[in-house]
């Protein structure tokens, strides 16, 4: 019996190998559908296993850590893997059409490479969420970066190549910074396993330096303001399914690693200041990203800048879970709210943002351009896509009863409980600005066109994929119990005991 944990990595890798070896027209669809199905089945097995019998751990190569590499799954890992599975397979459903011979948006050549690249990327996202080894995480981050860069260049446009190159350089700088931190941590603790490092005594300056290097690298990869410069071109110039994968899933992986380090490795008198710094940069991202989104004239750039803003909310977790120099927790009693709120934000943003980029893909296909001013008459021509964009927008704004509302409500509760009221102010302003750019985006859809124009028809499946993601981003707000119970399995957010 192979463990479900291992299947979550093996299934997409087997699919990727097959898709690479058999890129022909006949095999593409069965392999893609088979790989999505097998990966989803693995995710389901892992979820029920962790749900029923608690956190899991397995050793690879027969060598227990520290000599070997361990895979570990707690509630938070499973939460992220489920998010990747649901969002990834709906994007996959869209891509089945986008990269098929029915679509005239793609060349036969790029259709051969999408599936192997995306399946390797999917497998290594799962590998990150399951890894318990900081060097193994580095390798998996490299796989993700390279696959993402190759996916961006698939569209073949010159501007996509430039964006991909800039992304590659920024991401490699981030990787190297992270790797330097790994070296320092290994020199300090003599081990690479997260659990072993967490159990050892905190080590002062080398450890703080390691965290600073790793956090800088990971923040660059997550596109935290002001290191977000590479994101808008990279995410907007790629093809629609690729944009959705990058914005919804890829940026979350490096953030996940940062959270693991924050809760597992980093502690000390500097913690509060670092938390406030990360929270402040997140707040700046919320305001700056939303302002930039307001100024965009093209749909995909608007959505990409919105990603910069939404990433900011994720970083509010750091000030809310930090420890003051005196040793007491800044938000004692509210840690659970802060952690579940931010996890929930990651989930609802992934769903909503994937829906928006896929919707933008439909617009691009039908109208031939994604200029906002060209989207006149869209509400009548593409009612489903307009509805999907609007619904996803509701979740981004954080209107009840959406998933975005639940997430922001939890973060606000935690911030008020911690007495850090200023984050609430940022969240409120951010929500207003989000509403601004969502309405700005939808305004053109409801203006009727001046003269009837000849447009390409859009088929149902791709519109439904976007709609399903948008609906899910709202529906996750209705049912919070199970995700909450899942997130605490294995205690993924431990705050160190007082020394």
């Amino acid at each position, binding site marked *: 019996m*192979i463990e479900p944990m291992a299947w979550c990595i093996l299934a997409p890798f087997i699919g990727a190998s097959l898709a690479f070896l058999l890129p022909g027209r006949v095999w593409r669809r069965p392999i893609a559908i088979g790989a999505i199905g097998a990966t989803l089945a693995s995710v389901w097995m892992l979820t029920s296993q962790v749900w029923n019998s608690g956190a899991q751990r397995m050793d690879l190569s027969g060598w227990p850590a*520290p000599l070997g590499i361990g895979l570990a799954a707690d509630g938070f890992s499973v939460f992220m893997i489920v998010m990747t599975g649901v969002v990834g397979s709906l994007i996959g459903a869209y891509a089945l059409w986008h990269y098929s011979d029915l679509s005239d948006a793609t*060349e036969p050549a790029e259709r051969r*490479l999408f599936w192997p690249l995306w399946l390797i990327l999917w497998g*290594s996202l799962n590998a990150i969420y399951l890894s318990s080894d900081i*060097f193994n995480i580095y390798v998996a981050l490299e796989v993700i970066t390279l696959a993402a860069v190759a996916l961006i260049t698939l569209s073949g446009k010159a501007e996509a190549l430039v964006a991909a190159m800039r992304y590659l350089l920024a991401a490699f700088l981030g990787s190297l910074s992270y790797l330097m931190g790994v070296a320092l941590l290994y020199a*300090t603790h003599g081990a690479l396993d997260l659990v072993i490092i967490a159990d050892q005594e905190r080590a*002062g300056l080398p450890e703080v330096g390691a965290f600073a290097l790793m956090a800088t690298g990971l923040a660059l990869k997550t596109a935290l303001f002001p290191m977000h410069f590479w994101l808008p071109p990279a995410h907007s110039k790629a093809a629609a399914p690729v944009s959705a994968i990058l914005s919804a899933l890829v940026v979350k992986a490096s953030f996940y690693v940062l959270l693991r380090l924050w809760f597992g490795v980093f502690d000390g008198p500097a913690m509060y200041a670092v938390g406030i710094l990360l929270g402040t940069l997140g707040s700046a991202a919320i305001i700056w990203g939303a302002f930039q989104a307001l100024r965009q004239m093209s749909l995909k750039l608007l959505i990409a800048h919105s990603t910069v803003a939404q990433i900011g909310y994720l970083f509010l977790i750091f000030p809310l879970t930090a420890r003051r120099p005196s040793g007491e927790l800044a938000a004692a009693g509210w840690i659970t709210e802060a952690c579940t709120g931010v996890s929930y934000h990651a989930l609802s943003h992934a769903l909503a943002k994937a829906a928006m980029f896929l919707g933008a893909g439909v617009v691009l296909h039908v109208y031939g351009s994604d200029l906002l001013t060209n989207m006149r008459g869209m509400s009548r021509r593409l009612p489903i896509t307009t509805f999907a964009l609007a619904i996803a927008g509701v979740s981004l704004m954080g209107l009840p009863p959406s998933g975005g509302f639940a997430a922001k409500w939890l973060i606000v509760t935690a911030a008020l409980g911690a007495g850090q009221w200023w984050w609430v102010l940022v969240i409120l302003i951010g929500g207003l600005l989000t509403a601004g750019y969502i309405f700005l985006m939808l305004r053109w859809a409801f203006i009727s066109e001046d003269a009837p124009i000849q447009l390409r028809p859009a088929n149902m499946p791709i519109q439904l994929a976007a709609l399903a993601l948008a609906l899910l981003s709202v529906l996750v707000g209705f049912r919070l119990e199970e995700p909450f119970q899942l997130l605490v399995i294995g205690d993924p957010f431990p705050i160190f005991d007082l020394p």
Partner: protein
Amino acid sequence: MTRHDATLRRRRRRALLRVRIVVAGAGALALALLLVAAVLELPEGPLGLAEEAAAQLAHTGVDHAVTAVLLNYRSYDTWLEVGVLLLAVMAIFALRGGAHLENVRPAPRRDPLLTWLTRLLIPMLTLTAGYLLWLGKFAPGGAFQAGVVLGAAGAMLRLSGTPSLDRIGDVAIRILLAVGFLAFLVAAVATRLAGLDMLELPPGRAGDIILMVETLATISIATTCAVLVMAMPGAESPPAIAAKDVRKEART
């Protein structure tokens, strides 16, 4: 545009460059200070896994600690690294518009001296690669070193105008590129089905399995290197145009 405008712009660009240099310098200085301070605080004495890795060496099937780390203790990492190489080839294919080696320009004109040198060097490179692969068992060497040497042989064939990988067809190339990744994949599934931990090598047979996996990895690494040289943008028409576009784009 008047000359005045141009002068202004040049001045501004120079000022911006100066700011960048100052920022980069300050960043580098801060990083250096941080690293020095951190290294001075590091715990003294031998720390780390080198001793334990050496102590368990007898059970790994090889006599060299680095090979043991790469192909036994941490073979999962190596698997992902081989995946990185596969991705590099796919990225090059993506830059070529997805085409594999189909429209690579026929090899350049032959040069008698070069042909003679190639005839002399190719067997020696192949032999060296084989030796390095075998050497990994007890000394520095192994799949990566052997693969790079063998890949250099492929690049040399290409440069001298001798038909090689560019003539064996797409399917064969893809198989050669993927066998390294597949070897680890098969090992992962097979070890688990045999009731072992995933990727665990039974001490008795570990040496043979490692040699087999390394041989397949060598083939993939060598093919990857050679294909990267052959498929470089500019080797044929379409991507050459794309590359020109990129340069134009970058300038504006």
